[in-house]
Structures are given as C-alpha cells and as structure tokens.
C-alpha cells in the first residue's frame, strides 16, 4: 500500500491532473484573426472620433474667423513640431520648451515621489496598527478636505515664489490618495494571509515587506494613479501662480503675450506628458505586479 515517494519518485505516482499541449491550430488561427479584426476596428473608430473633432475645430476657426483666439489645428500641430525641433529655441521670452518640460517633470517627481515614499508606508502602518490609527486619524481627516490648490497662498508665504512652493503643493495633493488607498488596502487584507506569513516566520519588517505590501498592491496602484493625476494638475496650477518656469508658466506667458497658438500647444504638451508619466510610472508597477499574479 505504501508508495515510496521519498527517494525515487516514479513519475505518475501522483496524478498531476493537467495535460499541457498547444491548442489546435485552427482554433488559435481563428482567435488571432478575430483579435486582429477587433483591434483594427477599435483603431478605426477612435481615429474617426479624433478626425471629426479636428474637422469641427478647423471649420469653426475658419468659418467664424477666430484664428486669433482659436487657431486652426494645423497651425497648432505645426507649432508643436516647430517647438519640439527647436526651430525657435526660445519659448517666447523664456528658455526652450525642453527646459520647461524638464523643470515640470523634476517638480512632479520630487513632490509626487516624496509623497509616495511617505504616504504608502505610513498608510500601511496606520491601516495595520490600531493605536497609531487612533492617534493620527483626526489630524489626517481635518487636513484632507483642504484642496491642494488652497495651499498655494500659504506655500508662497512660507517658501516664496518658486520651486519649493510648487513642490510643496504637489506633495500636499499627492499625499492623500496614496495614503488613503494604502490604508484601506492594509485594512482589508485577508487575515489568513497575515496568519500564514507569521506562521512561516515573517514578523515586523519582513511581514510588512513580504506580505502586507504585496497584498495591498492593487490598492497602492490605484492610489498612485489618482495621486499622479492630481499631482500633474497641481504642477500646472502651481506653476501658473508661483513660478517662472515649467509648463504652467508657459500657459501664463502665452496668455500674457496673447498667443493662442502657443497656449494650445502648451495644453497639448501637458496632455501628452500627463499620459506618458501615468503610463511610465503606474503601468510599469502594474506590469511587474498584479498583471502577473491576478486572474486574467
């Protein structure tokens, strides 16, 4: 009756249950062509939407002769191209566009990064440790309703017009979504997982790093996404009011110079950079974590 599985495990002693093989050819071909068709259809529909809006825009601008305040899409695209290829290396009266972009990105990474480094571990701790939660909850709850933008005047008063003030308001904006998501995530962890971690020798830091942090990742990525969006908006707002560099400053300058083309160009750059940072930061985290281990 005893099967000696210790030394020489005869294959097949224990049924493995699953047979692995390639799906039948016809099936995978069918799947692939269906996927390609769907993808093509999606691109076609999306492009149609964009083209319709661009056309309407163009028609409006030309028909009502609004070029001064509503330049045609073509002129905006030309301006973007020109700006990025540095045909005119100066942004109006400031440095070239890359300097502005880098300055904004630097502030974003500083404010958002600092907020992430503090908010996520702090949120996890507050979520797990009841005593700590009872101490900090009233503080957090009373600061949270103040919108990031309301910090700008105080930030200017404290740090003067410039870099620090902008980074500060970005930090204040980015902190809370990450904090609250990490906290909620840490609270909802299946207690069995924490038990399992503890039974297998994890405690203190290792329990946090090996069990609580990974178990909270879906919440953390949600927090990152919301914070990043908020932070980018706050960069623009902060720079409009308190800086002489960056994309927000580009907007204000363009308005002062009454240059609608440059204004819209800056807005489109803001959209592109916002999208790219979201993609680079959040998607990168997701690709390396939940996408590997969650049910697809």
């Amino acid at each position, binding site marked *: 009756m005893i099967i000696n599985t210790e030394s020489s495990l005869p294959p097949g002693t224990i049924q493995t249950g699953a047979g692995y093989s390639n799906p039948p050819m016809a099936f995978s071909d069918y799947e692939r062509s269906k996927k390609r068709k769907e993808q093509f259809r999606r691109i076609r529909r999306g492009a149609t939407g964009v083209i319709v809006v661009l056309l309407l825009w163009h028609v409006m601008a030309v028909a009502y002769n609004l070029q001064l305040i509503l330049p045609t899409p073509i002129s905006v695209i030309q301006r973007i191209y020109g700006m990025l290829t540095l045909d005119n290396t100066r942004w109006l009266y400031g440095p070239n566009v890359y300097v502005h972009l880098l300055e904004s990105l630097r502030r974003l990474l500083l404010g958002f990064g600092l907020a992430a480094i503090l908010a996520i571990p702090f949120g996890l701790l507050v979520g797990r440790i009841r005593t700590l939660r009872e101490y900090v909850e009233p503080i957090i709850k009373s600061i949270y309703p103040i919108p990031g933008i309301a910090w700008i005047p105080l930030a200017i008063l404290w740090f003067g017009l410039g870099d620090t003030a902008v980074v500060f308001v970005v930090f204040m904006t980015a902190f809370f979504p990450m904090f609250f998501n990490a906290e909620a995530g840490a609270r909802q962890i299946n207690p*069995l997982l924490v*038990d399992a971690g503890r039974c297998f*020798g994890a405690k203190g830091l290792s329990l946090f790093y090996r069990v609580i942090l990974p*178990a909270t990742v879906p919440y953390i990525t949600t927090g990152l996404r919301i914070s990043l969006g908020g932070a980018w908006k706050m960069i623009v707002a902060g720079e409009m009011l308190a800086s002489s560099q960056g994309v927000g400053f580009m907007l204000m300058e363009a308005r002062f110079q009454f240059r609608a083309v440059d204004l819209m160009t800056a807005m489109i750059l803001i959209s592109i950079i916002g999208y790219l940072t979201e993609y680079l930061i959040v998607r990168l985290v997701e690709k390396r974590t939940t996408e590997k281990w969650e049910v697809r």
Partner: protein
Amino acid sequence: MGQPPINSTGEARTIPVIEARGVDHYYEGQGGWNHALSNLNLTIPHEEFLCIVGPSGCGKSTFLKIVMGLLKPMRGQVLLEGKPIEGPGTDRGVVFQEPALFAWRTVIENVEFGLQMQKVPKAEARRRAQEVLDVVGLGHVTDLYPYQLSGGMRARVAVARAWALRSANLLLMDEPFAAIDAINRMALQDYLVDTWMKDRRTVIYITHDIDEAVYLGDRILLMRPSPGRIGRFFEVNAPRPRDRSSAEFAELKGLITEEMHRFSSENTSIQEDAA
C-alpha cells in the same frame, strides 16, 4: 502509546509536546457569546500522530489556531514543550483549512517562503522546495501563480509549504487533504505516514473523514459540540501500513461514526431543550 519515546541522548522525554490545561474560548456570536471550547485538557506526547474528528463547528480549528499561536484562549493555557505559547513560529509547520497561498508568489516561491524567512541559502531552499513539490505531484507547475491552479492543486501547495519547513517538529494540519481527489489523497496519506515513520515528528491532524483518521492516527480525539470539548479518545494499535479492508478497521470506523452521531443528536436535543 506504550513506552515513552527516547530521545537522542537516551533519556526518556517526559515533557509532552503539547499540554492544554483548562482551555476555554468564546467568540462573539449572534446575540451573545459562542462557547467554542470548554475546559479542554489534552496532553500530546512526543512523536504522536493525533487525529481530531468531530462534527462541524465543534472547535477543532479553534484549538489548532491556539496551538499555532494565532489565538489566545480566554481561559487556561497551552504549553508547547513545557512553555506557554507566545505566538506563531517556524517550530510548527501549519496547513490551514483554506490554502491561504500568497497570490503574488509562484508555486515554488510559496513553498520557499518559510525557508526564505529562516535565511536558508537560495539554492538550498529552491532544491528543497522542488523536492517537496515533486512529492505532492506538482513538480511540473512550479512557476505558475496560484490563480492558475485548480482547488486541489492549491491545497497541495499549502501542504508542500508546511512540509518544506524542516525546522518544524510539530505538524499542525487542518483538513489538509479535504479538497484533494481520492487517488492523490491516498498517495499523500501514504507519503505522510511513510515520512512520519522514518522521521518521527508530532502531528496534530484535523479531518472530517473518519476513514482517514483511522488510517493515519495513533490516537483519535472525537470532539463534542456545543460547547466544543473533549468527547472520547480512541487508540489505534494496528501496525502501519494499515489495511483499510480489515475487519478491525471497519469496526473502529463504525464505532467512531456511531459515537459521533450520538454526540450530534445529543447536541440537537440540548438546543431543543433550550428553545
């Protein structure tokens, strides 16, 4: 159990692995306190294979959680090697009633978890994990994530994770094979008996399958529900490997089943009286 077991230095070990003294535990239940364990006294000597059976809700998992160090009983205490249990630790290998796998780790990384926490060198941990996974029949899916496994496969990963922990002299298993198909279950039971005979550890094994209890255990504890408490002990003296088709095997099974029915019906009549 005849003679007390002898340890490597030759002296008899008199301190039991587990000694539960007057353990009482209540949970907050629907409209009051639920008396989950009542005055539980239990001594488990070294190297014993103890099976615990009993009707659902009679406190089996609750007792095991106390031994795991995850739950402090409200009254009484449980001594592990003579010392009160302070918390969980790698001196006990545990299998929960649910697999409780780490979704973010592959199968083999799940099995390595305990070894990693003990700072076992990477290559050594990998080798050991692979070995145990081969034993439970999962040597070919080491790199899948838990969501890609069937329920029975997940249960086997949970078993492998506990078995990989060589530091554990006490195995605590809560219905570890319940979700596993009959053929694999029998193979795993045989493997468990086999390793236990070679390398005697103490095992507390909860099951709802009386056949399994009689096949595996030195001693079977049948618990009584409402409140959960000691019901009756059964000694199984048949040598291993045991013959499931023998008359004694069937007789003992019948006896335990009958007793369990008696306890269950007693339980309902108590509730009827109260109502």
